[in-house]
Structures are given as structure tokens and as C-alpha cells.
């Protein structure tokens, strides 16, 4: 009887420990799943054609051109590039003529096009033969049989076009433009601006709260900072939209107040609690003996703070700042609401910009599932994931080194 009781007890203990172990490993499993899903969806983009699904780009059969980048295709069809020389090809006539399906009646009597469009391949071939400088964007179906033009093999979207592209027009025809530079730049500008504003204020409050404030003041300050951290980001965004955006518009006399600066200010307010809490903890961890030694040597309180407390806790402060940057880079809603979301490379903070999270939030709803646009947004998600992972590992390294130093 007693033995059985022991066995049962042991069984429950083992079961409990197993349950705990499983729960403990859940976070690791989630991270692995996130990586798996994000990257598998995102990598699909690099298996997609440069031009829209189901279409081809065709030229005259004597045209020596072999390859075009998405940027070049866009410029050609937007009539920004007008001669073949600019594309590095020697074509008689040199002038580029663009042909879309709608343009066919300009070259060929409309009545002679068959009802079921069965003779379109010959028609397109003939038009291409007649015009040596022509480039055509036509459905793939019309180039399968009896087609004499040269179909350009443009290949898939590659890393270089994605990470080096300067234009983000995910729905552009005939070639989607997935250049992340403007979006990455926008993210960096806004976050940098935010941290420049938040750093002095955050440090000031942390020093004040850790070194100067009386117990009573500290008791009031702490819940206030906690509350600041608890307010939903969408409320900050709303506040920014109705207060800060008009304020910036009036102050700088701009056409629109939705600018990078508005984003930076809102993000700075949101990053403050992170910086304050961590920096304050770091400042408080300075051994009392060190501070007292400094005071005993005749330094006053301010000198002690500058020469002893801050240098001692600098790694903790750095960790707080880096985490604050991480929070600013990943913040979605507030930025989406106040920065104006223009996907152009910003030159000043007084222009509308767009960040990585805001792009995902704004466009994912409209991107058809499984399409190139959808997958491009997942690649943006991957970039964001990698950035925050790096930031977090940096912080962990800093605190690890710090621990060793103290030991």
C-alpha cells in the first residue's frame, strides 16, 4: 500500500516536471516556427519572375539586348529611358517604341483581329518585325505558337534588385519595383531622430530619479513612467495625429504635417519608459562605497554622478538605449498614423517617410495571398526580425560582459 502510494507520488512528480519542461521550451519552438514561416514565405519572392505573372517582354528578333533590370523596365515603360543606347544595346533607329496590348490598333486595323484573338501571335510578331526598336509587354499566351519575336529571359527577382533597388512600387506594371532602400532609410531616419530626442530626456529623468529625487517624488514618478509604457501605441498615434502633426505643419509652414519628424517625436515619447527604467536600474546598481569614496575625496554630488556613477553604469545605460532603438524600429501603429507613408528616400526629417513595419501594416491587407507583393512584405518582416534579433543579442552581450567585469 505504502509502496503504491510512493509510486503514484513519484509518477505525479515526473509528470509535473515533464509538463514544466514542455512549457519551458515553448518559447524556443515559437521562435523556430516564426523563422520557418517568415523565411519560407519570404523566400518565395526570389522564385518569382521579374515581370508580372503570365506576361512576357518581347523585342525584335535582331535586337541584341539580353537582360533588363526591373528598374530599367519601369523606366522604359514610363518613357524615362527613350533610346536603346541608354540600355547599352546597338539597335537601328535607336528610339525605343513601347507596345502594350492597347496599342495594337495603332499598328494594325482593329477589324482584322479575330474575335477569339487567335491571330494575335502573328499580328504581334509582324508588328515587332516591322519596328526594329520596339519593346512589347504582352500576355504569355500570345507568344506560344507562330511567334517570331525575341522573348527576353529576364529571370527571377534577385537579392541585388531587392536590397539595392531605390523604388518601392509593388503594384507597378509591367515589372513590380521591390527596392527596399527608401523604406530602410525611412526606418533609420525616424528611429535615429527618435533616439536623439529621447536620449537626453531619458537620461535626465533616470539620473534625477536615481540620484536626486526624494523617496516621495520617486514614489510618484515610478507609476507615471509605468503608465507611459502601458498606453497603447494606437493612442500615441492618435495623439500624434491630432496634436503633433498640426503643430509641425504650423511651425515649419509645411503643406502636410505628416512627416518623419512627427514620427520621431511620437516614437521618442514611446521609447522613453524603456530607456528610463533600464538606465535607472543601471545607475542604482553602482556600489554605495564607490560613490562615498568619491564624495569623501571632496567631489560634490554632480561630479560624483558624472565621473563615477555614469561611467560605472555605462553598459547598463547603453543597453537601455539600444533596447529603446529596438522598440522604435519595430513600432508600427503610431508611425503608420503620423509619418505620411511616402515610399521615397527622405532627405530631411520634414518629409513624409515610410518605415518597414508601417509598410507591412499598410499593404498586407491589399496584397493577394501568395503573390509577389505578399511575399515581399514577408521579406520585410524577415529584415525586421533580423534587426531586432541583432539588437537583442547586442544587449545580451553587453550585459554578459558587464557581469564578468563585476565578477
Amino acid at each position, binding site marked *: 500500500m505504502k509502496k503504491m502510494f510512493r509510486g503514484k507520488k513519484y509518477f505525479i512528480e515526473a509528470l509535473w516536471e515533464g509538463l514544466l519542461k514542455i512549457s519551458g521550451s515553448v518559447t524556443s519552438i515559437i*521562435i523556430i516556427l516564426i523563422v520557418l514561416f517568415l523565411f519560407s514565405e519570404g523566400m518565395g519572392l526570389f522564385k518569382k519572375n521579374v515581370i508580372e505573372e503570365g506576361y512576357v517582354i518581347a523585342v525584335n528578333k535582331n535586337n541584341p539586348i539580353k537582360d533588363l533590370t526591373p528598374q530599367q523596365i519601369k523606366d522604359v515603360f514610363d518613357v524615362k529611358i527613350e533610346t536603346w543606347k541608354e540600355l547599352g544595346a546597338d539597335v537601328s533607329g535607336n528610339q525605343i517604341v513601347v507596345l502594350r496590348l492597347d496599342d495594337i490598333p495603332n499598328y494594325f486595323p482593329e477589324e482584322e483581329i479575330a474575335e477569339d484573338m487567335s491571330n494575335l501571335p502573328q499580328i504581334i510578331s509582324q508588328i515587332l518585325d516591322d519596328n526594329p526598336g520596339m519593346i512589347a509587354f504582352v500576355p504569355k499566351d500570345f507568344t506560344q505558337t507562330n511567334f517570331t519575336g525575341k522573348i527576353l529571359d529576364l529571370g527571377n527577382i534577385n537579392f541585388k534588385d531587392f536590397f539595392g533597388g531605390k523604388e518601392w512600387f509593388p503594384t507597378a506594371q509591367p515589372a513590380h519595383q521591390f527596392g527596399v532602400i527608401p523604406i530602410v532609410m525611412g526606418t533609420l531616419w525616424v528611429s535615429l531622430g527618435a533616439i536623439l530626442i529621447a536620449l537626453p530626456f531619458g537620461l535626465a529623468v533616470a539620473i534625477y530619479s536615481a540620484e536626486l529625487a526624494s523617496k516621495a517624488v520617486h514614489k510618484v514618478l515610478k507609476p507615471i513612467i509605468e503608465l507611459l509604457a502601458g*498606453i497603447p501605441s*494606437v493612442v500615441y498615434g492618435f495623439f500624434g495625429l491630432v496634436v503633433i502633426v498640426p503643430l509641425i505643419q504650423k511651425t515649419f509652414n509645411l503643406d502636410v504635417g505628416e512627416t518623419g519628424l512627427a514620427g520621431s517625436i511620437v516614437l521618442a515619447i514611446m521609447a522613453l519608459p524603456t530607456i528610463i527604467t533600464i538606465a535607472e536600474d543601471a545607475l542604482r546598481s553602482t556600489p554605495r562605497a564607490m560613490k562615498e569614496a568619491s564624495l569623501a575625496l571632496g567631489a560634490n554630488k554632480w561630479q560624483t554622478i558624472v565621473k563615477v556613477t555614469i561611467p560605472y553604469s555605462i553598459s547598463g545605460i547603453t543597453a537601455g538605449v539600444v533596447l529603446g532603438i529596438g522598440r522604435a524600429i519595430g513600432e508600427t501603429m503610431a508611425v*503608420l498614423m503620423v509619418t505620411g507613408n511616402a515610399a521615397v528616400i527622405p532627405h530631411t526629417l520634414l518629409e513624409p517617410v515610410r518605415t518597414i513595419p508601417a509598410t507591412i501594416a499598410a499593404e498586407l491587407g491589399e496584397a493577394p495571398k501568395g503573390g509577389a507583393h505578399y511575399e515581399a*512584405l514577408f521579406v520585410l518582416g524577415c529584415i525586421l*526580425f533580423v534587426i531586432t534579433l541583432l539588437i537583442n543579442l547586442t544587449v545580451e552581450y553587453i550585459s554578459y560582459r558587464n557581469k564578468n567585469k563585476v565578477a
Partner: protein
Amino acid sequence: MDYLKRKKINQASAFWILKIMSVVVVAMLFWILGFILVNGFQVISWDFLTKMPEDGMTKGGIYPAIIGTLCLTVGSMIFAFPIGVLSGIYLNEYAGKGWLVRLIRTMTNNLGSIPSIVFGLFGMSLFVNTMGFGDSIIAGSLTLGLLALPVVIRTTEEALKQIDNSYRLGSLALGATKLQTVVKVVLPMAFPNIITGLILSIGRVSGETAPIMFTAVAYFLPMLPSSIFDQVMALPYHLYVISTSGTDIEASRAMAYGTAFVLIMIVLILNLCANALRRYFSNKVKTN
């Protein structure tokens, strides 16, 4: 003498600057709170809280959004609380100091710092598409639950860390097993801190927008959900919609203030509850 004077002036001016900057930060918070509370309070009425939105969301109330947020928050907590608390217990009471535990800790920290929009992408890919839940309460709750998990784990761990080791040793010395020690001695003592942490995490989850944008919420849905596979409206998303892309942004401004007011009140009340609980329990421990 001159040096001493300069030293004094330096300190005084530095302290003044610190004080002024701190006041600016506090004033900023009161400005935000005051602005929204004052403007929102005029909109709040019983009808606003219990009626459906009307006239392209420019009139009426926000009842379905309140219920939606409630559903999503409760759902995420059902998922995150048990797993998070168990995980916290494992990390603090059972796990040793090996590389595996260090890895799990790093992973938990990393999960906590992943931007919420990435959770949204992941939730959409896994719960909505792969598992086929569609945009639904369950998909949104699970996504929010993932977001809350690291917070719950950290809270539990911190609470357990504060329990002095002598209590555990005392219990073990009396012949209790490890399980009995954890359940009967450690957990009851850590309970107040765990609860306050959980309350604060509810506040964080209820205000999140990005994770539910593509997993649970509807733009406009003037009815209540009937099962966990239904779409819902939610307060934070509702505020986003009516303040940026509604049918008539100017006309729905009043509704936006009201919604922001409700969102802030949720956080404020949860914070007050957490603080009150903390005080209540700490008094109780002292009298014992």
C-alpha cells in the same frame, strides 16, 4: 576659491536642468492623458458604450469593439497564462545552469523583443492560412497570446526569484517533495507579484493593434460574434480606422476621442488595480 564656486554653480545648474527635463517628461504624460481624457469624457455616455456604430461609424457607440477586445484579451490569456506561468516556474525552480537553459532564456528574451507586426505576419501565415482558422477570434487570440507569453514568463520568474531560498530548504527538510514545496510554499508566497504582473500584461495585450490587424479584426461589423471562429471589431483597430481611413474623418473625430478614452481607462484601471493589489498583499505579509 574660484574653483569651489564654479563647482557649486555647475552642480546647481546641472541639477536644475535635470529637474526641468524631468518635469517636461511628466508634463508630456499629463498633456497626453489630459488631452484625451478631457476630450473623450464629453463623448462618453451609456449609449456610447452599449450601442452599435451608426452612419459610417460617425455616430452611435462602440459596443461590438468593446466586446471584441474583451474576447481577444480573454482568449489570449487562456493561452498565455498557464503556459507562461509553468514556463516561469520551470526556469526559476527546476532548470539548472546548463547551456540549454541559457538558450531558453535567450529565446524568451528574443521573443519579447520581436516587433508586434512580425507576430501579425506570423499569426496570419500560421493560424489564418496554414491552420485554416481564417480571420477569427481564435487566430487573433493565439497571436496575442504569443506576444504576451514572454511578459508572463518574465513576471513569474521575477516573482519567484524574490522568495528567499530558506523557505524552500525548510519545506524540503520537513520531508516535502519538490512539487509540494513549489505548490504549497513557493507559489502562495509569490502569488501577489505574479497576479500584479499578469494584470499589467492584460493591459498591454488589450491595446495591441498590429498583431490582430490581419488575424482577427473586421473594419466594420455591427453584430456580436457567435463563435470563436467569427471575426470581431476591436477597440485599438477601431480607433486606427476611424482616425485615419473612415468614411468621414472629421465627423468621426468625436467617436475617436471616445474610443481613445476607453482604451486609456482600461490601462489606467488595470494599473490602479495592480498597484492596489500589490499594496494590499504587502500589508498582509507584514502583519503576518
